[in-house]
């Protein structure tokens, strides 16, 4: 997989290796990382969350609206988090309590969220969010851009959660042998819902960064970003079943996707083809995985 990453780096060359450009990739990737990290956990439970991009978009709308109205970043962030968590809870509850397949459930919430985003804004962007918000993308903390700080913090938090807490252990078990977990007396449903709530909440948090980056909330801003997130997780080595996964791999996957997008952008490749390219990357990663397993 690292080989694939290296190949990715070598591929694009025109203006790519410029320092500022690389820094830019890092910054932009943070948003994706915030989505891909909880997506890793969800996929470890043999689930998936297709609604993340839409929820992120809707959260941006909420966040921007509150920020414009009240001028308070804290309130705005709280609103976004609450929205994200609510969608996450809906996803998780349907999957856990009704046993519905995550693919279909999150497809539904994807529709609901993106529809709501368009309706509530009348398909218009919300501008004028104010510098307090923009700080979270453009500002620096001790000389390091805020997004990178937040990204690193998120990764460390997730790492601790996954590998050092009971919650994390149960995430692996939810995917690896859910019945064994149930027989061990653990409240499986609670943890399953928790994973999706985490995903939704992180999407809410990512809204802060995305809105800051664009200084506005566009009702179609992050539609489809879940595709990149899922791709990053899969490329990073987390398989779709049995609870087999690697969190740092997701980080690498995010970087790879970021690099690819950036490189293709510089080559003026249209977005639709970029998606195809990522698709090729996913398949390549999976094929390499399957050869490793035999």
């Amino acid at each position, binding site marked *: 997989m690292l080989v694939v990453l290296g190949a990715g780096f070598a591929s694009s060359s025109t203006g790519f290796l410029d320092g500022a450009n690389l820094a830019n990739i890092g910054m932009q990737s943070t948003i994706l990382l915030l989505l891909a990290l909880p997506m890793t956990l969800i996929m470890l439970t043999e689930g998936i969350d297709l609604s993340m991009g839409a929820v992120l978009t809707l959260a941006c709308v909420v966040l921007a609206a509150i920020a414009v109205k009240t001028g308070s970043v804290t309130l705005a962030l709280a609103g976004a988090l609450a929205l994200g968590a609510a969608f996450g809870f809906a996803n998780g509850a349907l999957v856990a309590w009704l046993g519905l397949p995550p693919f279909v459930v999150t497809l539904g919430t994807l529709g609901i969220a993106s529809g709501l985003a368009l309706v509530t804004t009348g398909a218009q962007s919300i501008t004028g969010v104010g510098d307090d918000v923009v700080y979270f993308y453009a500002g620096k903390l001790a000389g390091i851009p805020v997004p990178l700080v937040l990204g690193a913090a998120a990764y460390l938090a997730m790492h601790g959660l996954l590998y*050092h*807490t*009971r919650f994390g*252990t149960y995430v692996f078990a939810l995917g*690896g042998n859910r019945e064994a*977990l149930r027989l*061990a*007396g653990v409240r499986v449903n609670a943890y399953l819902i928790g994973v999706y709530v985490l995903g939704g909440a992180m999407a809410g948090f990512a809204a802060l960064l995305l809105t800051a980056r664009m200084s506005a909330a566009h009702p179609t801003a992050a539609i489809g970003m879940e595709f990149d997130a899922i791709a990053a997780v899969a490329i990073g080595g987390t398989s779709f079943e049995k*609870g087999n996964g690697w969190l740092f791999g997701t980080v690498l996957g995010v970087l790879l996707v970021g690099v690819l997008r950036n490189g293709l952008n510089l080559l003026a490749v249209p977005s639709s083809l970029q998606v195809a390219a990522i698709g090729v990357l996913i398949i390549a990663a999976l094929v390499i995985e399957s050869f490793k397993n035999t």
Partner: protein
Amino acid sequence: MTAVAAAVGPAHGGEQAAPLFELRGITKSFPGVRALDAVSLEIRAGEVHVLLGENGAGKSSLMKVLCGAYLADQGEFFHRGEPVAIRSPADARTLGIAVIFQEFSLVPYLSVAQNIFLGREPRGKIPGSVDHKRMHARARELLDRLGLEVDTRALVHTLGVAQQQLVEIAKALSQEARILVLDEPTAALSERETERLFSIIQRLQSQGVAMIYISHRLAEVFRVGGRITVLRDGRKVGSLLPASTTPDELVSMMVGRKVDTSYARRYCESPGEVVLEVKGMGAVNGVSGVDLVVRAGEIVGLSGLVGSGRTEVARALFGADRVTAGEVRLLNRSREGGPDRAVRSGMALVPEKRKQEGLALIRSVADNILLASLKQIFPRGWFSPAKGIGVASERIRQLRIATPGPRQMVQFLSGGNQQKVVVAKWLSADAKLIIFDEPTLGIDVGAKEEIFALIDQLVQRGAAVLMISSELSEVVKVCDRAYVMRDKRVVGELARAELSETNLLRLAMHDA
């Protein structure tokens, strides 16, 4: 044998203390079948109590009741003479009961230590965190007690089956289990691993742990068993000491059902040509050394316990799994290739899991019936619905399939009628050799008779039938001859005169 004899303790009469655990009058019914009928069992500390019985005798059901996975309809539990209740897995665990099923309860991508302490991880200082150091240290202790030299950080999926089993035992021990249930523990073990398991069992006995041992390997039963209880049809037939019984007596206790004479079959006096001839066949699914002959007009049974390889033989013959050794000849022509070629050469398979492998549930009865013979009925590739319905209706009438009509969705039919649809499918395909895998599974008594009559019709018309069945009485009643399988090999053949439930079970169980 001395270690075992010493562990048995006081025999009949003179029970000084109440047994460690007792089940009394356990009854459990499922719709249509009584799995357990007033079964009582005494479990003594430091004793290995063997549970014997055929498939479906009630062993798994009893264990599931014991570990709290099933709720008994009637019956009582006593712990050291005191009445207790088991209403959930947690209750069973509190009482010190741990069950190690054949399919392990392990999470593949977690470490050994994490698996052992799943749900009971030692807490760290930060709320919600796990104290890894303590967890691994305690896991190490447990593994050392069992003599398992595996790294506690190793991911469970990297371990071999025997090691995984020991991890499961460690898990049970970590829960302070006083009663350990082992379900077919040696099924997947090599001889050396089996020996190691036995020495662990002895060590646990000396620590006062009681064990319930479920196995079909009589040699083992006599080796580790301190007491033997035989179940049959959900009832307890008896409890005895190994020293006072013999393998033959045990077998006859497990069998011994009254033979049902309501269906009289005209057994095949003069079989026709050899339809299927198998010599020394081996396949990727594990079967080997398979020799079979089936002639036209015969119903040949394939008997054996669950896991003995019968379905695998069927799949290999049909081409669903690849044959790696030996010869398979159908109508004197070498049979190769996958199921599509098998069907074209005149073979049919009525699978065990008819819902997954034999029917397209949301399609109509007619669609399913026609499925395997479309080429014959519509040779020029043009499908005429009218003709299709016509052929299907004829079959429905012939086989007396109870359905509102040929267009009814198959999933709405009863089990017995669904099975008839599968048979009808192959009748239309005009097969020469039909393999039935558990043809009467989940079918009520009346429908069973009809299925047998259908199979009889097939062989009267000159087909050859290979019938896999776990119901010994069925095999005896319906088959002209039978082969018996054990451990993925064919170990014997019984001619009509020798065909009895006792003989079938004896061949299926005895070790060499």
